[in-house]
């Protein structure tokens, strides 16, 4: 899929909501986190939501960078590597305690595992399986509506 701006945003939100939630739901019980399960879930889903919300800004930036590419494409690899700046920025924000609803940051290992696995799953689904139920998605720049 070669994205357009709205396609990027829609795809990100839907994939995080569906695939990201599924991964989070499965992962939280085994992540090295402290506290009651409900609390751990709350924290993890807030992190997931933050990846989604910040992502709208990131997608804008990626869209801008893409303009320098003649083909106006976004190589598969970029879709994976962008986790690095995104996870780093979110970590800084968590550390500064500015993410609403979250007091303090989770342990680094749990954070990395969570964000990393969610990202990997979303990336894998976006690079193939997504096309199975959504036949038109790849020809519409990733737009779902």
């Amino acid at each position: 899929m070669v994205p357009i701006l709205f396609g990027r945003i829609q795809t990100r939100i839907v994939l995080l909501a569906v695939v990201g939630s599924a991964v989070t739901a499965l992962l939280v019980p085994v992540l090295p986190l402290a506290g009651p399960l409900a609390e751990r879930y709350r924290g993890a889903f807030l992190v997931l939501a933050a990846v989604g919300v910040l992502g709208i800004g990131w997608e804008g930036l990626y869209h801008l960078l893409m303009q320098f590419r003649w083909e106006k494409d976004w190589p598969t690899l970029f879709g994976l590597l962008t986790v690095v700046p995104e996870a780093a920025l979110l970590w800084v924000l968590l550390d500064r305690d500015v993410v609403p609803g979250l007091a303090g940051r989770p342990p680094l290992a749990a954070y990395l595992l969570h964000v990393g696995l969610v990202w990997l799953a979303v990336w894998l689904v976006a690079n193939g399986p997504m096309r199975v139920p959504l036949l038109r998605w790849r020809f519409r720049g990733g737009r779902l509506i």
Partner: protein
Amino acid sequence: MAHASHGPGELTGELLAAPIWSDDLVEAAGIPVSDAPFVTVGGGIGSFVLVDYLRIAGVPTGQIRVLSNLDHPWETYEYLTRVSQIPRPERIRSDSASRPDNIWGFPSYAVSEAWQSRTLRPLIQVFGEPIFSDYWTPRAGAVFAGLERESRRINYPDMLVKGVVRLVRRRQGGGYFTILTPPEGSTATRRMAYRSRFVHLAVGYPGLRFLPDLRAFRETYQDFSHVVNAYEPHEHVYEFLKTRPGTVVVRGGGIVASRVLQRLMDDRERYGLGTEIVQIFRTFVTGAHGPHPWARRKGGDGWAYQGFNYPKSVWGGQLKARMRRLDGEARAQSYAEMGGTNTPWRRRWQQQMRAGRRGGWYHPVQGVVTRVEPRADGMLVSQLTGDTGDREIAAHYIIDCTGLEADITEHRVLADLLAHGGAGRNPLGRLEVERHFEIKGTASGNGALYASGATTLGGYFPGVDTFLGLQIAAQEIADDLARRSWCRRIGPVRSTAQWVRWMRGRGVEDEG
């Protein structure tokens, strides 16, 4: 010969003159009529992907007829790729997810190849493309094998009717008549008519086009052996070069020129030949080019480099969305900016050309050839006018790699549509189609006439003449047919269920 054999079942003068035919008129001519709601003309890859789409949407085989002179949908493609130096084991140009045998593009060819050959290499290459590796592309043989399998799965042969289509005319009361000339002796009458509500045209390239100076040479000297088109069989050139050192002129700067160069250079290396190559570019690209910093294409040493024949985003991204809104002059302008002759930058080709330039046996030059003449010793002399003055180039053979760009009127069916069917031309001179690939001006009652492939280049969607483009057209057409309540629109549930059947190699399910 149409008028000479005026027996029953022949096109009459009256039919040929009437832009709209009544059932009575056709019957009076004695032409037998068959009914099928949907007819596709061509039977190449374009017809195949649309039929595949419709079958997966649940349309039964009885509703569809494919009128074609081909036995298999990949026949013309295989012929053209083979002569232009892509035999089955070689890799084609389009990417991993451009799969004409799979409407989802998943699993992609790279996944299939990795699975079949038990290696991760294709996946690693796809992962790094196009930054750390060249675009991964499938082998021609894999494409044909997949098409063969899908053709069986959807019962394609049951829908195929062999013959050459002569013309398509609108029918009084709606729909169309398609006139087919079946293979001689196979039917009682010389012509047959198909009466249908919908017609789809995917007739491929109208014909070979030769450069004017080369056509003049061939006609003047009646020599069809020393000047060849890359799309004609021309093994004799490579065979000649194995017998003695020779000079070849290659004309053009597209992917076919790249392929021909590769063959010449591979042979040179493999058999230790002394082949000299002069490549003539009409437009010699010396570096990155384009109107502004955010629209620059890579280039150099004569070539314009691009992975596919258009920038990748025309098949689904930003450029697709943008082109969809453009008409007339603005559209033509955009085509000029991002199209033009180009070839992929491939590591192997770069190595070979570097070696050739260094070794002094490969000479890329800029120029326009005004004339080609034979010399007393049998060599062909090209008179070249270039940016750096005039010169003469002598060679044993000239290979024209410039194209399949003949005018659409060279195809009878298309010429007839322009003359009698209400069709018109787009800003690039080909058939003007709507965003959903209906040919503008040809509607007939509740029927519709669609076209896809090379004949529609210049429309709202530039990537038409590619596998993926043909699939995009198929999707648009299938959705339009669903809007007209003729078939069902494939939604997420059916799409997933049908994909599972595809994966398991099970046939498609017809809708009641």
